[in-house]
């Protein structure tokens, strides 16, 4: 029997209202040990080529990692995977919170859902008991009400609930999922896939413990008190506990890479109104956390002033904060908090939603859309009321919201003209709030990531630029070298490749990006040792990196099979144009040098630089030569 897992996958067919249990063995598990690896494997093996994202046949996969629910900080995450309605590519989103660990405690490593229920339903999982229940009374209601209602009707306040909101019900292409109302698997439109299946929620109660699955439960648990003590003794975790991600605003602004006005600018003239000190004064009410995590990086906010912001849905993280302030030209922190609350209430991805509104503002200012299209709304940069109104329209797919709910790529195609230059996306997924013109390795991640633009695919260049820094020293075992943030080179591509494999392994093992090196709250050998204790394997760092690389190759193979190639691994044109202001005014990413660096990256990855198809040799090295056979007969 494999350790660190129950070895059980729950299969659900909503069309036929059936469920069944599948098990996997040790050999399978060591190749695909949960999370991204397991989900990508199932999607590639089982989803027929060309399946439309909203077709009932699309798979909706939730997968825990080996360490999800382990009793130490930052071991909290699960992956949600489907063919994305936003990109039509491999779609992936992760979240922390409490739901993944609860699913693990209920004895399930993954859930694979297919089909479409005839009318709205929710899934109820109580250890081995699985039930598909009527959710017609929950459809259209807010997440808070849904959570309270489900807990009341099942008679247990400790039930953990993952659910979509109005956005997912209305198939907004960037709708996400929330658990415990405050933790979001928001990206890639997986919530819209869930909505298309008429599945409103998955309620879980598990009475098991991580120790039930672990090879050496005491060995795994030993890291818990060590990390709990370390939080205040380590600068990175101390800062995350103190400020959380909203603390990033002023540093990025000073560096000239705070996305402002749809990435035209890198510095915001009103940064003092949105930076951490303002956040702490105007918004903050408490600090919260995820399952068993001593870092406590989640912010709680409440406002009863210019705007009424509920404390039910969690405070804005950095991405949401910048997206709904500087990137929309809005200098009102309370408006940004309200925008975040609305997105959380409707369960929309704040990154894609804010970016789509910034795109629409720029289209409006260039006369590509007018008052007729917006319903009389002056959709200009800086107009907070217009921004908030757009979120309502998008969630309900009303008026221009119906177009914007399609995301910037499709909206630009409909609007036409120069709109495509204002659409900041890769593969159809909107850019996160990090400007690669000041850290080009992040641009590599935006370009190559199978799920579209994403900021959590590898290390951000400044973290490992200085060999004496905490970040570099923590990540040194990965085989990196110090490289300046704006250098475009083969060695930059190599750094990206090495750390991408590590970060991908985090997504396989269920670890949060804020724990392990290069954040370095958890050292690399500590994580490898935890994996050994959990599984009983004699696993090495190199095997961990191969696990991560294998997962990426499975996702890439899915994309290649669906017709994606190098032509889709491109940055938006604007990033090759100079920034208008700030410390990096005039700086752009030179296209030819970026392309050359990308070619180096494909070579490090063992992929054909044009088709981006993994070579048979690489797949053999990773123990998945069957993928080469599959691609040759696609």
């Amino acid at each position, binding site marked *: 029997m494999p350790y660190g897992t129950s070895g059980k996958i729950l299969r659900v067919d909503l069309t036929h209202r059936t469920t069944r249990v599948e098990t996997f063995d040790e050999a399978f598990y060591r190749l695909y040990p949960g999370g991204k690896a397991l989900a990508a494997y199932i999607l590639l093996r089982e989803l027929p080529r060309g399946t439309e994202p909203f077709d009932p046949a699309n798979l909706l996969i939730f997968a825990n990692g080996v360490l999800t629910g382990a009793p130490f900080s930052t071991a909290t995450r699960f992956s949600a995977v489907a063919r994305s309605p936003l990109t039509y590519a491999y779609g992936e989103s992760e979240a922390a919170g409490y739901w993944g660990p609860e699913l693990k405690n209920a004895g399930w490593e993954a859930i694979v859902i297919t089909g479409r229920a005839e009318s709205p339903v929710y899934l109820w999982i109580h250890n081995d008991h699985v039930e598909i229940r009527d959710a017609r009374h929950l459809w259209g209601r807010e997440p808070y009400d849904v959570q309270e209602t489900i807990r009341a009707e099942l008679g247990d306040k400790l039930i953990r609930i993952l659910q979509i909101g109005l956005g997912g019900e209305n198939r907004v292409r960037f709708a996400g999922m929330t658990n415990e109302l405050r933790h979001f698997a928001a990206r890639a439109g997986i919530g819209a896939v869930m909505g298309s299946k008429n599945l409103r929620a998955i309620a879980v109660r598990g009475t098991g413990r991580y120790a039930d699955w672990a090879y050496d439960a005491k060995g795994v648990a030993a890291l818990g008190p060590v990390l709990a003590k370390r939080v205040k003794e380590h600068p990175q975790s101390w800062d995350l506990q103190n400020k959380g991600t909203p603390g990033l605003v002023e540093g990025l602004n000073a560096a*000239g890479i705070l996305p402002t006005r749809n990435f035209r600018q890198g510095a915001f003239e009103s940064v003092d109104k949105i930076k951490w000190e303002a956040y702490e004064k105007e918004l903050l009410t408490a600090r919260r956390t995820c399952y068993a995590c001593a870092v406590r990086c989640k912010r709680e906010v409440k406002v009863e002033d210019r705007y009424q912001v509920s404390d039910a849905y969690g405070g804005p993280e950095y991405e949401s904060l910048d997206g709904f302030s500087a990137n929309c030209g809005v200098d009102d922190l309370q408006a940004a908090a309200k925008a975040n609350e609305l997105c959380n209430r409707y369960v929309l991805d704040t990154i894609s939603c804010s970016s789509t509104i910034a795109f629409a503002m720029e289209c409006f200012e260039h006369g590509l859309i007018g008052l007729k299209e917006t319903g009389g709304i002056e959709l200009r940069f800086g107009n907070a009321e217009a921004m908030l109104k757009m979120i309502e329209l998008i969630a309900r797919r009303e008026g221009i919201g119906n177009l914007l709910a399609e995301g910037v790529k499709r909206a630009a195609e409909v609007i036409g003209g120069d709109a495509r230059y204002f659409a900041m996306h890769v593969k159809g997924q909107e850019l996160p709030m990090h400007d690669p013109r000041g850290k080009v390795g992040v641009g590599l991640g935006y370009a190559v990531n199978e799920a579209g633009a994403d900021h959590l695919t590898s290390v951000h260049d400044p973290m490992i630029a200085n060999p004496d820094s905490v970040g570099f020293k923590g990540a040194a075992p990965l085989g990196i070298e110090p490289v300046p943030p704006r250098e475009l080179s083969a060695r930059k591509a190599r750094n990206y490749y090495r750390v991408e494999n590590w970060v991908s392994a985090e997504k396989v093992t269920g670890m949060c990006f804020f724990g392990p090196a*290069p954040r370095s709250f958890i050292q690399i050998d500590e994580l490898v040792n935890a994996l050994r204790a959990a599984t009983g394997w004699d696993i090495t760092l190199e095997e961990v990196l191969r696990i991560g690389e294998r997962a990426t190759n499975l996702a890439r193979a899915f994309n290649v099979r669906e017709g994606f190639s190098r032509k889709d691994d491109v940055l938006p044109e604007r990033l090759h144009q100079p920034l208008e202001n700030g410390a990096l005014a005039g700086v752009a990413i030179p296209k030819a040098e970026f392309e050359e660096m990308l070619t180096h990256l494909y070579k490090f990855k063992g992929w054909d630089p044009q088709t981006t198809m993994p070579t048979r040799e690489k797949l053999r090295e990773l123990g998945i030569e069957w993928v080469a056979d599959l691609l040759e007969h696609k």
Partner: protein
Amino acid sequence: MHLHLAGHLAWYDAQKRSRLIIQLAEPVGLSDLLRDLGIPIAEIAVATVNGVVVELETARVSNTDRVELFPPVGGG
């Protein structure tokens, strides 16, 4: 001199302060000052003096300056 230690740089101050006022009798090299204060230069990604980005190793600061130091930022 007003010194702002942004992000995790404040952790290196013994009292965990993010804003300090330092009296300087005469202009000093910024890197020398930081060594005296125990702020590791390797953890500084961007330094500004009166809002202008400067090179850490060559910048000099005086008593009326506003100095801001920012650490490298990862994803978030």
